[in-house]
């Protein structure tokens, strides 16, 4: 073992009380950081998961129709004009197969699903409910919103005249798997469909309104043969959705929105939360650094005589410097390991204490390797940095002075 390590470890072992005290301080600091991060990351991830459960990351639609002016201003002429927004009828995206093939190649996009989405009514004897009809290519659709996992009765099947509907809608209509309902649309479509499955996403508007059918049936319902009104995308990094949406918008000229735009308020809230978390962590780190530095400074003063002896018998001052740097680094490292364990334990305990009715934790925590690596790196770095001043002091001690005051 190198000399510096040997001396540093021996001193740490020898000054048990001091070492224990400072380790406790570092551990508590790291535990706070781990716990706070785990909790807030967990909350944010579960919020975003909930939000994205029934929502595509990026949605492409045909561009909105804008009113066209029939008369123009010209020099010497004044006109009075009233502009009304054009009524938006359901239109297919021009050349959608080519556009979809193009966006699928866009970096960061992992899945694309063409759809016909429109309004309609579900009718069964005397009950009529407004619905959102989603005609999908099942394989592609499921790779974006995996409804199979949310099916509570029957199974996911949209072949032939089969449809899958939300649980709230099923109960509103009073229907079960196997029953038949009428689906009518504003475009005059009217078909009889068989319910093959009922899903519950836990998202009220969706469960109350969605009628999932095949692309083909929906094309028939809306008189859009071979058309698709919407292309939905799933991206690899959810927070890159907006930049991907931007590039798709630029390339296709379509009306493209990302989930981030649609949930701007949620995101603003989350980022404010992250900022306050970072601030708290910063102050914890500062407190830990001050703790390590002050204990090490005291120990340099206490050991000045021994440092003088080391120097007098021929130990170069850079080795003395290293001894104290190592002490700081080791304290940070060990403290962060203990603190990570402590923080994880605390998070798990917290998670198990607060549970909802369904047994799922109210505050899901997110403990990942990245967090531990981060905490360890910060604590070790802080340990090293806070040891710099004491270590320099130690290495500059004048051996003669240190020895004379025997």
């Amino acid at each position, binding site marked *: 073992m*190198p000399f510096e390590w040997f001396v540093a470890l021996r001193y740490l072992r020898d000054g048990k009380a001091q070492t224990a005290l400072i380790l406790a301080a570092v551990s508590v600091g790291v535990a706070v950081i781990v716990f706070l991060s785990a909790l807030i990351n967990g909350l944010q991830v579960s919020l975003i998961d909930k939000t994205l459960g029934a929502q595509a990351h990026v949605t492409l639609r045909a561009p909105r129709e804008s009113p066209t002016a029939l008369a123009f201003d010209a020099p010497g002429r004044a006109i009075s004009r009233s502009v009304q927004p054009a009524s938006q009828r359901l239109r297919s995206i021009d050349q959608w197969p080519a556009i979809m093939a193009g966006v699928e190649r866009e970096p960061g996009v992992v899945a694309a699903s063409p759809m016909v989405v429109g309004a309609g009514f579900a009718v069964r004897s005397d009950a009529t409910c407004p619905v959102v009809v989603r005609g999908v290519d099942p394989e592609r659709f499921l790779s974006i919103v995996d409804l199979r996992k949310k099916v509570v009765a029957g199974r996911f099947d949209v072949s032939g005249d089969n449809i899958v509907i939300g649980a709230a809608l099923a109960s509103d209509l009073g229907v079960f798997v196997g029953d038949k309902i009428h689906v009518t649309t504003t475009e005059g479509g009217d078909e009889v469909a068989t319910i093959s499955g009922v899903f519950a996403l836990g998202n009220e508007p969706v469960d109350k309104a969605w009628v999932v059918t095949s692309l083909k049936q929906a094309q028939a319902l809306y008189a859009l043969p071979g058309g698709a009104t919407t292309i939905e995308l799933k991206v690899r990094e959810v927070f890159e959705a907006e930049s991907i949406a931007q590039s798709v918008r630029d390339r296709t000229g379509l009306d493209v929105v990302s989930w981030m735009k649609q949930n701007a308020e949620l995101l603003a809230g989350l980022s404010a939360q992250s900022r306050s978390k970072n601030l708290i962590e910063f102050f914890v780190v500062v407190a830990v650094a001050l703790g390590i530095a002050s204990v090490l400074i005291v120990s340099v003063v206490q050991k000045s*005589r*021994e440092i003088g*002896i*080391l120097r*007098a018998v*021929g*130990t170069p001052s850079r*080795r003395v410097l290293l001894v104290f740097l190592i002490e700081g680094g080791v304290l940070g490292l060990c403290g962060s390991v203990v603190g990570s364990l402590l923080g994880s334990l605390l998070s798990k305990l917290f998670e198990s204490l607060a549970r909802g009715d369904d047994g799922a934790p109210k505050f899901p925590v997110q403990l990942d390797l990245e967090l531990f690596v981060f905490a360890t790196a910060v604590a070790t770095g802080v340990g090293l940095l806070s040891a710099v001043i004491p270590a320099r002091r130690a290495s500059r001690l004048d051996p*003669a002075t240190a020895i004379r005051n025997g």
Partner: protein
Amino acid sequence: MVEPLLRVDGVVKEYGRGVLTRALDDVNLTLAGGEFAALIGPSGSGKSTLLNVIGLLDSPTRGRVLVGGTVATGQSERSLTALRARTLGFVFQFHHLLPAFTALENVMLPAWGDAGFASAEMMARARELLVDVGLGDCAGRRITQLSGGQQQRVAIARALSRRPPLILADEPTGNLDTASAEAVLLLMRRFNRELGTTFLIVTHDPRIADRCDRVIEIVDGRIRSDGPPGLASAGGSAAPVSVARTAP
């Protein structure tokens, strides 16, 4: 002619700012290889100061120190540390061992701290030295578990561990009873005889001084007498100076 092992040239050492204390006042001294010399003088006369200057722990205000022909005065702290590690061994007034370490580790310290790594050879040599000073059984014990005399012997073993040509000992027998003091002195004489190591020993004890080959007396920072034992204790005003040894 051959450079002496140690040469002190007109060294003046002053302490303090404004009101100066002159601890050493124009000291000239040479030590040849294999000498066994005592440095005596009343308390506050400058013995420890002279030893610190010779040991390159303190730099003189004026004058210079040459070790083995190399001018040490004015060199960088780094090269002084290296020179110290190679040529000098210390036995301090307050033995100055490291309490957190064992006897063996303390003896290994000079070689180890310089090289950075402990080698089997270092350890074997340290063990051998501990046996030599009669502490073969105490190698693994902490310094705090040893008696004063045992600690002093560990300090001597440490000073010898790199076989330095010159060992500076500041009252190595200061806190010891007569028997232990005798044992420590015999030990140093043995190494002087067997290895040819030069010793400069600060002492207050006339019995120790009498058994050295040369006695240097210092009073008020000046060398008052220098010669074979017996001369200094006469306390004459015109102190004879050993011309044979001090002339270059």
